[in-house]
């Protein structure tokens, strides 16, 4: 930078540096003034669309009405928050969210680990590559496409019902069955996202030193003992890391997957916290209350992820931050 300015001292007097070694801040800013044309639009974007809306959460403390706006809506203190614990629809949404998240933790969390271990045990690179190409595919599809595909297979007019019909049996509409909804969404999540987790676990598996396996084999450790004593400890940090991220998103099971199927099985089975905020607030016009629910959810999520991170560090693992 300095070289360039020494090389052209006569061109623009404002740019020349005084004999002092250190420039003061104003001079530094003036020297770089054109680059701020690149930075300021992006800065405005982040402040306007990512930070300013945070202030919108004040309506959680108001009996907000769109006609009165922020300024004229009456302030009601913590009333919205007090209402939360007694609202029956909220309790249903909370129950569904926790149940689904626990099912996801038990079934969809280990699924990519199992698949990665299976793929890792295959020696042929070509089979491995083909399988990876196949399992990543649904990750890039929108939830609308995924649910539509499932509807064509499991819906009332879908493939399975058609097969049953040709056998003279009644159709089986799995997609509109409230009792089956929770296992169904877990299966959908596994089907869509198993590839993503597999990539990470596979990469972690390849970082394990092959000499460890050789040494263990020479000591007489067979396949399962090598898995238990070398493979799993070798990828433990990645497992813990992904578990932390998972816990951090404990209260957000996702939105679109539930929004899209809520109509088919009803809110009793499919309402989760995110959809609750949307339907109660934007659809139902109970703005202040829904915002309060969203705010509590956001704060609890942040606490969860910071807490999980802290625990991970306490037990000697690396955290996310």
């Amino acid at each position, binding site marked *: 930078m300095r070289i360039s300015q020494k090389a052209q001292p006569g061109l623009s007097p404002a740019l020349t540096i005084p004999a002092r070694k250190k420039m003061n801040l104003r001079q530094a800013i003036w020297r770089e003034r054109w680059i701020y044309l690149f930075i300021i639009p992006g800065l405005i974007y982040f402040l306007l669309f990512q930070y300013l809306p945070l202030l919108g959460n004040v309506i959680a403390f108001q009996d907000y009405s769109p006609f009165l706006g922020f300024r004229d809506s009456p302030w009601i203190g913590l009333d919205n928050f007090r209402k939360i614990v007694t609202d029956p629809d909220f309790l249903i949404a909370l129950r569904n969210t926790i149940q689904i998240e626990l099912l996801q933790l038990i079934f969809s969390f280990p699924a990519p680990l199992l698949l990665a271990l299976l793929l890792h045990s295959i020696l042929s690179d070509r089979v491995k590559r083909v399988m990876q190409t196949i399992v990543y595919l649904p990750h890039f599809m929108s939830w*609308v496409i995924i649910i539509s595909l499932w509807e064509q297979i499991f819906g009332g007019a879908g493939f399975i019902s058609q097969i049953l019909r040709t056998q003279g049996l009644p159709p089986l509409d799995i997609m509109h069955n409230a009792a089956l909804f929770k296992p169904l969404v877990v299966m959908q999540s596994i089907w869509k996202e198993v590839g993503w987790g597999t990539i990470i676990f596979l990469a972690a598996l390849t970082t394990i030193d092959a000499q460890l396996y050789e040494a263990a084999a020479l000591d007489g450790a067979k396949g399962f003992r090598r898995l238990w004593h070398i493979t799993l400890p070798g990828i433990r940090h990645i497992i813990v890391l992904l578990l932390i991220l998972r816990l951090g998103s404990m209260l957000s099971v996702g939105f679109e997957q539930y929004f899209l199927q809520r109509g088919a099985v009803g809110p009793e089975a499919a309402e989760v916290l995110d959809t609750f905020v949307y339907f109660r607030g934007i659809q139902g016009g109970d703005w202040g209350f829904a915002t309060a629910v969203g705010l509590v959810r956001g704060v609890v999520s942040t606490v969860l992820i910071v807490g999980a991170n802290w625990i991970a560090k306490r037990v000697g693992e690396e955290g996310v931050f």
Partner: protein
Amino acid sequence: MASNDFSAELVTTQAKRTTRPIWMEPPSPLAQVSKALILAAIAVIMLFPFVYVIAVSFSSYNDAVRGGLILWPKNPTLDAYRAVLEGGVVLRALQVSVGLTLFGTLAKMVATIMLAYGLSKPNVPGSRIVLFIALGSLLFSPGIIPNYLLVKELRLLDTYSALILPGLIGAFNLVILRNFFMNIPRELLEAARIDGASDWQILWQITLPLSKAVLAVVALFYGVGIWNSFFNAILYLNDTSKWPIQVVLRQYVLQGSAIPTVVDPGQPPPPVQTLQMAILVIATVPILLVYPFLQKYFTKGVLTGAIKG
């Protein structure tokens, strides 16, 4: 059938291409067969819905109504596609989605490149704070209602800007581009500066041509994101004529609305099932087309992000 192909391939490739480390026990035939069967089952479960839907969408009226296991259209026809596209709504939604994806990707790329370039320049007072602000947005989200109220206050409801502006710059993509720009040799940029090049000229003539590959990747991911985006259209667009293909797909396939079609008089209209599948295929094809590139870069991207942890 499929499982036989697979196990056959597994066995031959193992014999041909790979060597087992000497310390590893030879696998038992039982283990090998069961692994091959599991892999084949996974492959079928992942691929069957796609194959089935594509095959039925091209099937003739009689075949589709008869139903059953259709993996390849026996009497292939474009009837369903013609009927759906001539009905108007789907074609319109398709145009909206294509236009949104192209213009949206362009807008996001311009915004992200400018900020990334600005933040990649060393010794700019305040640039650290701006980077910090950008990354901070990853830690929390303002929530759906405050976002909606902001878009409403800005009078962006029922405009396409509402689908692009709120997510204009992805912090993650910003960091990727900034890091790439910072790795461009300083001497190159200094030399241009000595020759009197402005920041615009340096960005346009040196930085961007050197970053073609990473720009392509970021643009690809932005594009896929816009094509797949669904809920922001539900939230911000009341005018149904502005709906993109994902929303129309939901309307016809998941909500079961009647699909407006144009069919020749005297011909039986294509069954609803094939019409739905045709729309589904139309919404899916662009992703399938770019999938080979996506997979290649996606793997790399996830790895650079994850391995550090």
